[in-house]
């Protein structure tokens, strides 16, 4: 069982929870702790969302605080911004990350800029939960990973948990943060089980986690790609390659130091992320490594992201668009000069 690095941990028990259960537990704990926390979104109350992440919350906290909205993403996101400015701490639920397209004005022109434009006078302590991730056979409008878009915008913080324990600790930090936080949940991980501390803990933003230590190659991976990288690392070990898997956990703030130190130590780096590679998260992190570790590298930093195509429906086509354990293994082996 891997060590779980957290902050403010007050209990030592460890249980197995799914990724979805861990997020629900974080929300429930924060809603018990702080009556200002409320949830807004489509089918968040009795339905508990289509992914059932919120099941049980309306029963405990009531319909005043777990609010089913019309199918009006810009409207209820804007309501979240205004409510955050005036004393609540809303968690806005955007069912599919693809619907970021609908709310970009509220996120980019409103939420992200209110604090700065007002000279620091107004704040927007809002969490926007949404999903990412392909291979659910949902086709091009329900499968994208668009976290790079919001990572580009000053004023936002962007979180990509990869394990149940991280999801819980990062969600609690997100709710307590004074800024708009976009929290991406890979919908393919909701059923993923993992150890979660049973006591109170939070995980700070901007602190990468070395999910597996290694000496030959650094694999920087985000969200579900961390699980892919860990799988690849097991196969690499079998052929004598020791891979270090670094999970930034937040794309902004970004823990450049940990990423650079790992690359300098191993002298090789691959960046794996499920967003599009072009102008994407992998490009940014590869640039961070190139700028910070260039003279210690034995080869070019390599990037692996979604193929530059709309996500197709047909299973063999869809599976080909995203990095896999096999493709990460192959590229790592190549970079380490093995054939």
């Amino acid at each position, binding site marked *: 069982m891997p060590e779980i690095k957290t902050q403010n941990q007050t209990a030592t028990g460890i249980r197995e929870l799914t990724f979805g259960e861990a997020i629900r537990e974080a929300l429930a704990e924060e809603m018990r702790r702080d009556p200002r926390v*409320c949830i807004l979104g489509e089918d968040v109350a009795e339905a508990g969302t289509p992914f059932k992440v919120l099941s049980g919350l309306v029963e405990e906290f009531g319909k*005043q*605080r777990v*609010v089913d*909205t*019309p199918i*009006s993403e*810009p*409207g*209820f*996101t*804007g*309501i*979240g*911004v*205004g*409510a*955050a*400015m*005036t*004393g*609540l701490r*809303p968690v806005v639920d955007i069912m599919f990350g693809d619907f970021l397209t609908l709310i970009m*004005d*509220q996120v980019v*022109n*409103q939420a992200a800029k*209110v*604090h*700065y*434009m*007002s*000279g*620091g*006078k*107004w*704040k927007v*302590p809002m969490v926007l939960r949404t999903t990412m991730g392909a291979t659910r056979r949902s086709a091009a409008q329900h499968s994208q990973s668009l976290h790079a878009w919001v990572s580009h915008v*000053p*004023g936002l*913080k962007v979180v990509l948990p990869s394990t149940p324990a991280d999801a819980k600790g990062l969600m609690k930090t997100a709710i307590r943060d*004074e*800024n708009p936080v976009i929290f991406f949940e890979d919908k393919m991980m909701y059923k993923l089980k993992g150890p979660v501390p049973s006591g109170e803990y939070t995980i700070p933003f901007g602190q990468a986690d070395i999910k597996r230590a290694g000496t030959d190659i650094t694999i920087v991976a985000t969200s579900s790609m961390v699980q892919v990288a860990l799988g690849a690392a097991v196969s690499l070990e079998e052929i004598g390659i020791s891979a270090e898997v670094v999970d930034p956990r937040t794309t902004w703030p970004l823990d450049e130091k940990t990423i650079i130190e790992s690359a300098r130590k191993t002298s090789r780096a691959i960046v794996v992320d499920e967003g599009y590679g072009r102008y994407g998260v992998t490009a940014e992190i590869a640039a961070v490594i190139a700028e910070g570790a260039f003279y210690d590298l034995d080869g070019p930093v390599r990037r692996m992201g979604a193929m530059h195509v709309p996500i197709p429906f047909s299973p063999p086509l869809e599976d080909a668009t995203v990095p896999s354990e096999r493709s990460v293994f192959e590229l790592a082996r190549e970079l380490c000069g093995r054939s």
Partner: protein
Amino acid sequence: MMHADRAQQTKEPEASAAVGAEIGADRLLRMYRQMVAIREFEQHANDLYLRALMPGLTHLYEGEEAVAVGICEALRVDDYITSTHRGHGHCLAKGAEPNLMFAELLGKEAGYCRGKGGSMHIADPATGNLGANAIVGGSAGIATGAAFASKLLGNGRVCVCFFGEGALGQGVLYEVMNMAALWKLPVIYVCENNMYNEYTHYSETTAGEVLGRPAAFGIPAESVDGQDVRAVHSAAKRFVEHARQGQGPGFLLCNTYRYRGHHVGDINREYYRAKQEEQNWSSERDPIKLLGLWLISQKLTDAAVLESIASEIKAQMEAAVEFAIAAPYPEINEVDQDVYA
């Protein structure tokens, strides 16, 4: 496209002489003073632009003063407003200090937003001003969210969402009106119809009846002569009371007119509206003149009092402009401050 019948739209029915008596002389004179202050502020803003002392452009509120003043006079200091790119009037009417407003217009450290917002983003928590917004319709969500918070927190505050008739084209407005009606939120949508979406007459962009839109959501709605501050205030009081008592949102359509161009640089306007139309509004439908004449006719004041108000305001605004011109710019190291709270 020009409209032959447009001049007729200047002939709004005057509110009956009786409307306003119950408002009381003190409040009426305060509203008169506020309208004069906004007019004087805007004339100085234009002057600062012409003298090349103001960076960028600004959108002036002259002609529409009765709307902001009549509405804000019905609000408590802890009630909220959201404003627009043409927002100076709303901010002043809600209680903003002219010197800090001018400082913001000039990008100075002393400004409401430390110079980071400028003319289109004045915000002030002390007066409940959630901020002016440069996206047309962009504050509809924020205003409705403030009302959502007021209801959940039970603090009795209402929120007024000011927007121009151009925002009637934005879908998010109808999304939040729907939710405000469903959840009985204390928000009043105030549509300032100054007749022009930038450079296009609203009849070219707006199908059907404006009041049919709130009616579709079951939101009580009224149309009011936006040049008559007494009528605006009376309607606003009813809507504010309704909202504060938990009976839900309201929609007030204020028919008004923008004396100047879309922004200070919009000088040659004859391709979209006639000079005669502009003259008709300013000579026959000016909100300050209308209230002044009415106050005198009702023997609530006399011309000398009104003149002394005008000269006091003039001196105040001149001093505010001098303050702003003399104020320093922010230090360069301010540039990356307050990106995050």
